[in-house]
């Protein structure tokens, strides 16, 4: 009886996925993501060359040997783009994990407890939130210096308030929902209410914000490394390669600018499509808000 029920639900979701435009959107997004995640994990196997070694003449235009051409130091751009997925995804995931790991619990507690603690924390988070994210990240990245963890931390600081705010606002409104009051009337303990009644209700928005933020984090990382504040060269990094490629466009070497850029665009597109679709599938009311 129960089994049938679950499988029915899954069937419905899959059905929705392909019948509606939303489903298609999510599916394409997920495929793009899967593609880049595969690239990132299997970069050594997929990439034709060592991304930080000189393998050809400098600034070779795309040809059979170097499908995306080479950069000014004769490194294979295709390999660098493939390896670049590693850095981009790693930083994005670490950043988002840190942000979520800090923002979500704080948001839950702050929203549930309320009072002065909540007010102070909200004020601080709002202050950070209102501040232009990239500028904040620039400042922190400049302070911390290069390195995967440092960059992730700078980005995480920017996104922590997003989680906090989303969670806190939801929790504090869910807190006054009737079903929470009903749970209290039943005599449930605080942590039970938080875990059984409130958390499941904020989970969908967490998932959506999470995938939305991954896209933003990749973008921010690219921005930072474009400004020269990201990962130290020669590590392959889309943002850095882009700004490096920019130096040679007047020498007609457009490929150094085009491919890393396309990589950023497609991966961010993948994430946004995925999160947009997810958003509509999981929570039809939230989409109207953003």
């Amino acid at each position, binding site marked *: 009886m129960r089994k049938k029920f679950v499988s029915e639900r899954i069937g419905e979701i899959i059905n929705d996925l392909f019948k509606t*435009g939303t489903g298609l959107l999510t599916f394409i997004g997920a495929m793009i993501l899967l593609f880049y995640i595969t690239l990132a994990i299997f970069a050594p196997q997929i990439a034709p060359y060592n991304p930080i070694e000189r393998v050809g003449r400098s600034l070779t235009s795309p040809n059979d040997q170097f499908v995306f051409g080479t950069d000014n130091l004769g490194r294979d751009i295709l390999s660098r783009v493939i390896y670049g997925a590693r850095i981009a995804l790693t930083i994005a995931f670490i950043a988002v994990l840190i942000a979520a790991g800090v923002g979500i619990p704080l948001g839950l507690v702050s929203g549930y407890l309320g009072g002065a603690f909540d007010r102070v924390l909200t*004020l*601080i988070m*709002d*202050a*950070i*939130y*209102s*501040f*232009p*994210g*990239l*500028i904040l990240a*620039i*400042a*922190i990245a*400049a*302070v911390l*210096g290069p390195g995967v963890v440092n960059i992730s931390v700078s980005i995480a600081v920017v996104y922590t308030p997003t989680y906090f705010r989303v969670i806190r606002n939801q929790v504090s409104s869910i807190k006054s929902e009737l079903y929470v009051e009903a749970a209290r009337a039943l005599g449930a303990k605080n942590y039970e209410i938080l875990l059984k009644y409130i958390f499941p209700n904020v989970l969908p928005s967490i998932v959506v914000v999470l995938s939305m933020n991954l*896209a933003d984090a990749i*973008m921010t990382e*690219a*921005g930072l490394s*474009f*400004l*020269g*504040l990201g990962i130290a060269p020669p590590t392959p990094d889309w*943002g850095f390669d*882009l*700004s490096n490629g*920019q130096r040679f*466009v*007047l020498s007609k070497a*457009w490929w150094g*600018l085009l491919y890393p*850029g396309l990589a*950023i*665009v*497609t991966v*961010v*597109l993948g994430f*946004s*499509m995925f999160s*947009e679709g997810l958003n509509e599938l999981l929570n039809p009311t939230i*989409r*109207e*808000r*953003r």
Partner: protein
Amino acid sequence: MSLKSYIITRVILAIPMIFILLVMIFFILRIIPGDPVLAILGGKAPLEVIEAKRHELGLDKPVIVQFFDYIGNVFRGDLGVSTLTNRPVWDEIKDRFPATLELTIFSFIIALLIGLFYGAEAAWRKDKSLDISARVYSILLYAIPVFWLGLMLQLLFGVYLRWFPVGGRLSPRVSLDIKTGLLILDSVLNWNWEAFSDVLKHLLLPGLTLGLVISSIFLRMVRNNTVLMLSKDFVKAAKARGLKSRVILYGHAVKNAFVPIFTIMGMQFALLLAGAVLTETTFSWPGIGSYLVLKIKYRDFPAIQGTIVFFAMFVVVISIVIDIVNALVDPRVRY
């Protein structure tokens, strides 16, 4: 609550916000591992000189004293002195701010026009091809990094077609008497049409870049909120009274859609500023965004701090202004 007391409340509410921002900036920037003094003096200075400089900048005092000095100075309008140029940071920002303002206003207008009309029409034709195109547009543009879009536009219109210049605000040979710093305004005030068209040419690519990127978010907000408003009873009621569809769409749905949009506009503005940093860098736009990047390159510590403080103040002021405008648009806030 009257509008006046609303404004007072709003301004008072900004104080803790400013304070938190200032504290945040102070502590982030004071843990810079690189010593700003050494950055100024390079490797050639003897130790006594370094000590003297450190004293001069107040870096030898206890952190807490430094903190109160800093807060005090900020409120006196003293953002410190750039170690790179030895000018008061405030003066340097004053020089550069109009450029940023001009760029952001211009892009904002572009984003507003695109977002407003495209978004409203898309909402009106929900799920029709125009709406789908709007959604594709917004999701696609959102995914394009502003610097890459900038570079691509530069490549196309600047390098290959040579229609527009790729950087700066004014051609070297064009002279213009600068009063406000907003060159468009200045050229109009001077009746200098040569300068006007030159300024506009320079403004177009960066403004478009930033405007397009911001428009994607704007478009989405307008569309979604308008869709929401169109489903409201008062829209149906308006329709039942025989109002024309344009009036219903723009006079009722879009206007009401702007109420929630206004409240998140502050955030949008922050986004605009962040985008401005990258756009200014790509287009050599001499605003505070590129100023900040430059100063970070040279680790010009007081200038970095001053600029960030300025950004913070700017953000706070904008959010106050937006809230007040919001109160003007939405009477519910006032009463």
